[in-house]
């Protein structure tokens, strides 16, 4: 049995997809999600092998969801009503996708490929990154709940006891990624690593203060001061347009 999660914000679309999938005895629908946050929660909780993922959704869209997934993600089949650019990218990279309204034979073909396990997950991730542009939101945990934080609210990201936290002006939220993953993920959105255990949002940097022996300090929007390691100082100054 293939444990499958249905993700679509429209109830009617989920209904018709459920009906279409009923013909396939090896597909087990383990859950449904109506928005990006719910999708991430269900993926973490139910660990499905396959996610049928609508692209146009509130909260996080399909591409953004893929980017927030942790290592060893499920197989993804994208669903869209009309996104000619995405479809071109899918075609070019042999990524599975379905067009709404879904035709049974197309569904069958996509499921066949999932069964054979031939999906190139890196291609899915690459296309998602390309299609969604710089990330604008980040999925994080507040206790057990998953919340979506706009990146412009995140002042910095730090490591504490091997856990990674995104800090806003008012709270610290757990992010289930490594700091290295976040560094590459958030670089296009204007985040820079300033030390081994810390990223800052360049938007929130207010002052650069020279410190001891070639190190610097940054003063952030919430008046916190953080150390910048010597080898990162140059990148930071470059990124801020100094030198």
């Amino acid at each position, binding site marked *: 049995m293939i444990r499958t999660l249905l993700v679509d*914000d*429209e*109830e*009617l*679309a989920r*209904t*018709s997809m459920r*009906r279409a999938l009923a013909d396939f005895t090896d597909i087990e629908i383990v859950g449904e999600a*109506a*928005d*990006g*946050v719910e999708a991430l929660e269900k993926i973490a909780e139910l660990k499905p092998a396959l996610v049928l993922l609508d692209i*146009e959704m*509130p*909260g996080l869209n399909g591409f953004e969801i893929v980017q927030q997934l942790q290592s060893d993600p499920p197989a993804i089949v994208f669903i869209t*009503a*009309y996104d000619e650019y995405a479809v071109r990218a899918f075609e070019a990279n042999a990524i599975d996708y379905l*067009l*709404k*309204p879904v035709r049974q034979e197309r569904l069958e073909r996509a499921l066949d490929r999932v069964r054979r396990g031939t999906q190139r997950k890196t291609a899915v991730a690459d296309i998602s990154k390309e299609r969604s542009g710089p990330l604008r939101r980040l999925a994080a945990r507040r206790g057990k709940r998953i919340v979506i934080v706009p990146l412009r609210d995140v002042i910095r990201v730090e490591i504490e006891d091997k856990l990674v936290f995104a800090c806003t002006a008012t709270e610290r939220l757990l992010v289930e990624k490594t700091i290295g993953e976040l560094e590459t993920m958030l670089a296009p959105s204007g985040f820079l690593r300033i030390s081994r255990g810390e990223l800052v949002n360049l938007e929130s940097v207010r002052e650069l203060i020279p410190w001891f022996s070639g190190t610097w300090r940054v003063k952030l929007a919430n008046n916190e001061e953080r150390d910048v390691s010597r080898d990162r100082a140059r990148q930071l100054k470059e990124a801020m347009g100094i030198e």
Partner: protein
Amino acid sequence: MKCFFKWVFSIFSFSGQTPQWRDVPLLLAKCTVWGLLTGPIIAFVFILAEHPEAVVGYLLSPRELLTSSVVGVAWGLSFYIFLGLGNAFLKNWIGGYPRAISYTISVIFNVVGTSMAVLVAGSTSLFVTNQTFNIPADYYWRLAVINIALALGLGVIIKAFIHLRIEVEKTQNLLREQELATSRAQSLALQSQINPHFFFNTLNTISALIDDEPAAARRNIGRLADLFRYTLGCCTHSSTVDLDQELDFVRDYLAIEQERFRRRLNLELPESPNPGIQVPGLILQPLVENAIKHGIAPRIEGGTVAIRVQPAGDRVRITVRNTSDGEPLPDERSLYKPGHALDNVRARLRMFTGQPNPLVVATGFGYTEFGFEISSSAAAGKVSA
């Protein structure tokens, strides 16, 4: 040579605009060349008619040829200075006065100008001619009369011709502009037809409804058909429609969207009819689509789309408002990207209302609103179709 004649003749082709002071020396130069050429020709014709035996002698005498040229220049220049130039500037100066006054001034000016021109040109040519030709006084006066008649006759004909040409050009331009405006309004309206996204989403909605709620499926197919009929028919005959028609169309559109978004889409629509108000066809739908795209689709909890029609003096204010997180608006440039639906709406409202910035964006606590004002009388503000 061809160029030279073209240049000389171009003195007649001034296009009714007021000449600039810096053009005057050039025009005077042209007049001079014109006089140099016409003077001998007129004299030649005159001598040929009166004294055919003297023609050869005239043509062989540089002194006589030069004299007739000077006479031609004298007449040409004085008429140009006193009448042509004066009239051109005069038109600009008296343009603001009532028609009767400006007409009187113009007539007085022309009479005085003609007399002055005749006086100056006449005495000049009398003087030079007496120096050269030994001709009796009555010949001289006949020459003068022919000159005046020619100048006036030619002047009238040329003036009438230029006037006619200007009028024809004006009418042609007007027609072209009107045609352009109409076809542009139509093409913009066609461009603003419904997003394919909407079409496919609706098909999907209907496909999902067919088994469980056949009645709802049928209802939505009916709405979809009406929507397409409206978009196909609305802009082919006239670029404007009744506001109520447009609101009905938007109601259908929103009813279909509500089928998709369910509880996430909350609607506030105007109830009362608005007879006699004309709007460009398909002007509201892009705004509503935009409201759903930004106010409903990206929000997990959804929101409200509110359309309001409020009287504002002799105008009507129409607004489309959607819930928003109070995110700052992107700047104008990205809001009105060329080819973007909002740019299209703005361009069409510009043509319809004549205002430079007819589409007003407002943000407030938890909402974003696009609004525009149009005249509430049926006749006014119509794009001629």
